[in-house]
C-alpha cells in the first residue's frame, strides 16, 4: 500500500462529499448499463429489450449502488484522516528539523522552558500535596476546630477545660459530636518500653468521641469505644500506621496485644490508615484522655488544656455552630467565676486551622513561579518573532507553493508546541530534583509534607502548563508571520524589514522587564522581611547552646525521687568538661510557652488602679536556667536551690510584666496574690520571645522546679565550643544517672531557631530564586532584541560610521534604545508591583509592602542589568566595518 494514498489524489480530486460520491457511482453504473445495452442491440435485440436484458444480467443494481457508495464514502473519510495525520507528521518532522537547524535558539528556548516548567511543576506538586489533596476524613468541610475566647485576656484561641467541654458537648445541638484531645508537640509523648529499645513516642490523649467526630475508621482492628475510655477501664490504645510499620513491621498480630506505655500495659485496639495523622504529621498513638490522672492535669474549670473539634450536623453552617456555642459559653461564664472572662468562642473549619498559615505563602509562590513561566513565554515569543522575520523568505516560498495562511500558522504553532513539549519533558525531570531540593530547604516543615510527590495529576498539570506555554509563546509570532504579505516579499527579494515586528518585539521586552520587576520586588520584600526576622533579638544568646529534651519517668514521681533525679541530671551534665553552664525549663523559647496560672491578683496601689485579676503564663525553670540561656537579670535575684518545697513559692517576672503592671518599677516588696496567699516577686529578667520570633514578649513569670515539679525537662547547656561536640558526653552523663532514661532530642539552639524560620526561609529563598530567573530572562530578552536590531541595522550603522559617527554615538544609539525599553518596563513593573505586593502583607515581618528601599534597589538592579544587556550588542555594533557592511548584500 502506498504510504499516503490520499496525498497524490489530493491534487486530482478535492474531497468529495456524499452527494458527489453518489453521482459518481450512478454515472459509472449508468455507463456500464448503456454499453451492455449497446452490445445487445448489436446482437439484434430491440432497444427496450436490450435495456431490460442489461439490467437483468447486471444483478442486484440497487444493492450494488448502495454498496459502492458506502465503500467510497468510507474511503474518502479514511484518506481524509490519513492526510490529516500525514500533515501532522509533516509538521512535526518539519518542526524538529527547524529546531535542529537553529541549535542556539533551540538550546536557549529549551533550557528556559525546562526551568520555567520545572519550577512550576515542583511548586504545584507542593501545593497539590499540602493544599489540594483532601483531608483524610470524610466530609472534612463539616469538621471545625473550636476554641474558648476571652476578649478581656486578648486570648481568642484558648483550649477548653474538661468541665467546659462536657457542658458544651451536652448542650450543643447543632453538632453531631464534639471531641477533645490533649496534644502538645514534644509534650504529650510517652515512653514505649518492653519491646526492643525504649523509645519516646508522640501521641494524643483523646475523648471517646475523637474518632467518630472525624469519622475515621481503623485500618486493622477498631478504634476506641466509649466504654473503653472511662476511668477503671481505659488501658487501651490505637496506634498510627507509622508506628505500626516502624516498630512492628506491619504485623497485624500486634492488635489485641498489650504495649507498655509509661510503664503501664495497654491493649492495642487498632491501627489507623497511613494518611490519618491528626492532630500532627508525626504521631504514634491515641490513648483515652481518662488515663491522665487529675494530679497530672487538673480537671477544674481553670485548667484549660483540651483542644476541641466538632462535626457540624448536615445543613448547619460554621456561623450557626459558632452562634450556638457562643450562647452556651455566655451562659457558663455567667454562672462560673473561673469562666468569667470567657464569653466567646472561635470556630474555624479544620482545613483552615491546619493549612491557613501556609496557604498564603504557597499560593504566593505559585503566583511567582507562574510569572517566571510567563516571562519565559514572552522571551521565547520574542525569539520566535525574530526567527520568523529571518525566515520570511522560507515562509514565502512555502506560501507560493500553495500553503495557505492557516497551514503556515499551524506549522509555526506546531514548532512552538514541540518546543514546549520537549521543554516540559526536561522540566519534569528538573521538578523531580526540585521537589527533593525543596525538602532540603524547609518544605519538609510544612503540614502534610509527606503528601508532596510528583503523581499523575502533577504530570497532567505539567503537560497542561507546557501546552499553554507553547501556545502562549507561539501564537503571536505565528499569526504575525502568516499575516505578512509573503508573496510580495518574495518578489521584492528583500531582507526582512524593521517595522511592525520590531515594535512588537519591543513591546514584548517591555512586558518581560515589567514582569521581572514585579518578581524582583516580591523577592526583595521577602528578603528584607527575612533579614528583619534574623535580626530579631530573641532575648537570649543562642550560640554555643546545646538543648536536650527529655521527660522524667513517672516511676520517679511515684517514689518521690523526681526532684533528686532532676538535680542529679543537672549536676552530672554540668560536670561534663567544656560545659560552662546548664539550666532547664519545661519549654525552651520558641518550643512552648509556660503554663497559664489562671488567677493571680496584682494588688492595687494607693492612688493607682485597684486590684486586678490576671492570667499569667508561668514557666518552670531550674536555678541555673537564666545564666545558661544568657537571659539578663534586670533587678533583684533569681532562684537558688534554697527556693524549694519547704519555702513559700516565689516568682521571677520579665520586664514586660513590670512595664505593664508596675509602671513605677519593681522593688523587693512586690507581691502577687493567689487567692489570699501572697507570692513574692524576687526579681526581674529580660524579655524572651517565648512564643515565636515575630511576636513581641508578653508578660510572663518563672517558677522554680523545686517548688512545683514537672516531668518535662529541656536542658539548655552552654558549651565552650561547637555544641555538637558535646552531644555524646552529655548523653553519657544523663545515662550515668539512669541508663533507661529516654532522650527525645539533642540539638543546638541554633537549629531550634533555624526551624522556626524555616518557612520564611523557604519562601524567601524561592522568591529570590524566581526573582533571579526573571531578571536573567528579562536581560536575555533585551539582549536578544538589541543584538537582532544591530544585525538588522548593519548597513545603517555602517553608513553612519562611514559618514564620521564617533564610536560613542554608535554606542549611545544602541544603548539608548535598550535603556528606553528597560525604563518603560521598569515603570510598568513598579506600578504592577504596587498593586500586587499587597497580597504579601500577611507574610512580611516589619516591612511595608511599599518599602521604598526595596523598590529603589529593584529599580537599580534592573536598570543595571539592562545596561549590561544593552552594552554587549552595542559593542558589536561598534565593530561593524563600514566597508564590509555596505558591500554586504
Amino acid at each position, binding site marked *: 500500500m502506498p504510504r499516503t494514498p490520499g496525498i497524490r489524489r489530493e491534487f486530482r480530486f478535492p474531497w468529495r462529499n456524499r452527494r458527489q460520491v453518489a453521482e459518481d457511482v450512478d454515472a459509472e453504473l449508468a455507463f456500464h448499463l448503456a454499453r451492455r445495452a449497446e452490445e445487445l442491440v448489436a446482437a439484434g435485440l430491440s432497444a427496450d429489450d436490450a435495456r431490460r436484458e442489461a439490467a437483468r444480467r447486471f*444483478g442486484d443494481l440497487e444493492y450494488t449502488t448502495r454498496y459502492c457508495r458506502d465503500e467510497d464514502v468510507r*474511503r474518502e473519510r479514511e484518506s481524509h484522516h490519513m492526510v490529516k495525520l500525514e500533515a501532522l507528521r509533516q509538521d512535526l518532522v518539519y518542526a524538529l528539523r527547524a529546531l535542529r537547524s537553529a541549535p542556539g535558539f533551540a538550546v536557549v528556548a529549551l533550557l528556559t522552558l525546562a526551568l520555567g516548567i520545572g519550577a512550576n511543576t515542583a511548586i504545584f506538586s507542593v501545593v497539590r500535596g499540602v493544599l489540594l489533596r483532601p483531608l483524610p476524613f470524610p466530609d472534612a468541610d463539616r469538621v471545625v476546630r473550636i476554641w474558648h475566647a476571652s476578649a478581656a485576656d486578648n486570648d481568642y484561641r484558648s483550649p477548653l477545660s474538661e468541665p467546659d467541654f462536657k457542658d458544651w458537648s451536652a448542650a450543643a445541638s447543632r453538632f453531631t459530636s464534639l471531641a477533645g484531645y490533649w496534644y502538645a508537640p514534644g509534650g504529650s509523648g510517652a515512653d514505649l518500653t518492653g519491646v526492643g529499645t525504649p523509645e519516646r513516642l508522640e501521641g494524643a490523649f483523646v475523648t471517646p468521641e475523637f474518632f467518630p467526630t472525624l469519622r475515621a475508621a481503623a485500618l486493622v482492628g477498631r478504634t476506641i469505644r466509649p466504654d473503653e475510655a472511662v476511668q477503671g477501664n481505659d488501658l487501651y490504645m490505637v496506634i498510627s500506621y507509622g508506628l505500626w510499620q516502624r516498630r512492628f513491621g506491619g504485623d497485624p498480630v500486634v492488635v489485641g496485644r498489650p504495649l507498655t506505655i509509661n510503664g503501664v500495659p495497654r491493649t492495642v485496639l487498632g491501627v489507623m490508615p497511613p494518611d490519618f495523622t491528626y492532630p500532627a504529621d508525626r504521631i504514634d498513638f491515641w490513648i483515652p484522655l481518662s488515663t491522665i490522672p487529675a494530679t497530672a492535669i487538673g480537671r477544674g474549670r481553670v485548667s484549660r488544656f483540651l483542644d476541641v473539634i466538632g462535626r457540624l450536623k448536615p445543613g448547619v453552617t460554621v456561623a450557626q455552630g459558632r452562634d450556638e456555642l457562643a450562647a452556651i459559653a455566655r451562659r457558663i461564664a455567667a454562672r462560673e467565676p473561673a469562666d468569667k472572662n470567657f464569653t466567646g468562642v472561635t470556630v474555624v473549619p479544620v482545613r483552615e486551622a491546619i493549612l491557613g498559615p501556609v496557604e498564603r505563602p504557597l499560593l504566593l509562590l505559585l503566583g511567582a513561579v507562574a510569572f517566571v513561566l510567563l516571562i519565559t513565554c514572552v522571551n521565547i515569543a520574542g525569539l520566535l518573532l525574530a526567527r520568523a522575520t529571518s525566515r520570511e523568505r522560507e515562509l514565502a516560498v512555502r506560501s507560493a507553493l500553495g500553503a495557505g495562511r492557516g497551514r503556515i500558522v499551524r506549522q509555526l504553532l506546531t514548532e512552538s508546541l514541540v518546543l514546549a513539549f520537549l521543554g516540559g519533558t526536561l522540566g519534569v525531570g528538573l521538578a523531580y530534583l526540585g521537589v527533593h531540593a525543596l525538602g532540603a530547604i524547609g518544605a519538609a516543615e510544612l503540614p502534610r509534607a509527606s503528601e508532596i510527590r510528583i503523581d499523575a495529576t502533577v504530570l497532567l498539570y505539567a503537560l497542561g502548563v507546557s501546552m499553554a506555554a507553547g501556545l502562549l509563546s507561539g501564537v503571536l509570532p505565528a499569526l504575525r508571520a502568516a499575516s505578512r504579505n509573503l508573496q510580495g516579499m518574495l518578489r521584492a527579494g528583500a531582507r526582512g524589514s524593521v517595522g511592525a515586528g520590531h515594535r512588537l518585539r519591543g513591546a514584548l521586552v517591555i512586558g518581560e522587564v515589567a514582569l521581572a520587576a514585579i518578581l524582583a520586588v516580591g523577592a526583595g520584600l521577602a528578603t528584607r522581611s527575612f533579614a528583619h526576622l534574623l535580626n530579631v533579638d530573641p532575648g537570649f544568646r543562642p550560640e554555643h547552646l546545646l538543648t536536650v529534651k527529655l521527660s522524667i519517668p513517672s516511676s520517679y514521681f511515684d517514689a518521690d525521687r523526681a526532684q533528686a533525679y532532676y538535680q542529679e541530671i543537672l549536676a552530672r551534665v554540668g560536670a561534663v568538661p567544656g560545659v560552662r553552664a546548664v539550666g532547664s525549663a519545661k519549654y525552651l523559647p520558641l518550643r512552648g510557652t509556660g503554663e497559664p496560672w489562671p488567677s493571680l491578683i496584682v494588688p492595687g496601689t494607693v492612688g493607682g488602679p485597684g486590684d486586678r485579676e490576671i492570667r499569667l503564663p508561668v514557666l518552670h525553670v531550674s536555678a541555673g536556667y537564666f545564666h545558661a540561656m544568657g537571659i539578663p537579670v534586670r533587678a533583684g535575684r533569681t532562684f537558688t536551690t534554697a527556693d524549694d518545697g519547704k519555702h513559700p513559692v516565689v516568682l521571677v517576672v520579665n520586664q514586660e510584666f513590670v512595664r505593664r503592671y508596675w509602671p513605677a518599677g519593681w522593688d523587693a516588696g512586690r507581691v502577687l496574690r493567689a487567692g489570699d496567699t501572697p507570692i513574692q516577686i524576687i526579681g526581674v529578667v529580660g524579655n524572651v520571645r517565648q512564643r515565636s520570633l515575630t511576636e513581641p514578649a508578653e508578660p510572663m513569670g518563672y517558677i522554680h522546679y523545686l517548688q512545683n515539679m514537672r516531668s518535662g525537662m529541656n536542658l539548655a547547656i552552654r558549651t565552650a565550643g561547637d555544641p555538637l561536640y558535646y552531644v555524646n558526653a552529655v548523653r553519657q552523663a544523663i545515662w550515668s544517672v539512669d541508663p533507661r532514661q529516654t532522650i527525645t532530642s539533642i540539638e543546638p539552639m541554633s537549629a531550634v531557631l533555624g526551624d522556626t524560620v524555616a518557612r520564611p526561609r523557604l519562601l524567601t529563598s524561592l522568591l529570590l530564586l524566581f526573582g533571579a530567573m526573571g531578571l536573567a530572562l528579562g536581560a536575555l530578552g533585551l539582549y536578544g532584541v538589541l543584538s537582532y536590531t544591530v544585525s538588522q541595522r548593519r548597513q545603517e550603522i555602517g553608513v553612519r560610521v562611514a559618514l564620521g559617527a564617533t564610536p560613542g554615538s554608535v554606542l549611545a544609539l544602541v544603548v539608548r534604545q535598550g535603556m528606553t525599553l528597560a525604563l518603560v518596563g521598569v515603570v510598568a513593573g513598579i506600578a504592577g508591583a504596587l498593586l500586587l505586593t499587597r497580597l504579601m502583607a500577611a507574610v512580611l515581618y516589619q516591612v511595608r509592602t511599599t518599602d521604598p528601599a526595596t523598590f529603589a534597589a529593584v529599580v537599580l538592579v534592573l536598570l543595571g542589568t539592562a545596561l549590561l544587556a544593552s552594552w554587549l550588542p552595542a559593542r558589536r555594533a561598534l565593530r561593524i566595518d563600514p566597508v564590509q557592511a555596505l558591500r554586504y548584500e
Partner: protein
Amino acid sequence: MPRSSLGLLQGTVDVLILRTLSWASMHGYGISRWISDRSAGALALEDAALYQALHRLERKGLVQSEWGITEKNQRAKYYKLTPAGRRQLRTEVAELRQYMAVLFQVLDPASRIHATNSRHPA
C-alpha cells in the same frame, strides 16, 4: 453474491480483476468483457459482483480510479493497479496455484498440476 455459470470461488473475483488490470487500465465494462472473452464465456462474472469488488479493492488501496474518456468519447471511470495491488496479485496467484496443486494431488494423484514457474506478471 457472485453467481456464475462456472461457480466462481470466493476470493477469485478479486484476483481475476487484479489480473485483468495488470494488462492495462480499464473501465468496469471493459473488465467484464475481457474476462468473458478470455474464458470464452465460461467464466461469467456477474456485473454486480464486479462493481462491488472494484469499489472494495479501491478502498483497500489495491486499485485506483480516474475518470477518463473512451474511444467513443464517453465519460467512463478507469481503474488501474496500484503498486500494492500488483504485490497483492503476485501473492494471491502464488497461493492459488499452490492450493490447486495440493487439491489435485489429493483428488487425482495421476494428473498433477505442475506448479510451473509461470510468467505471471509483476
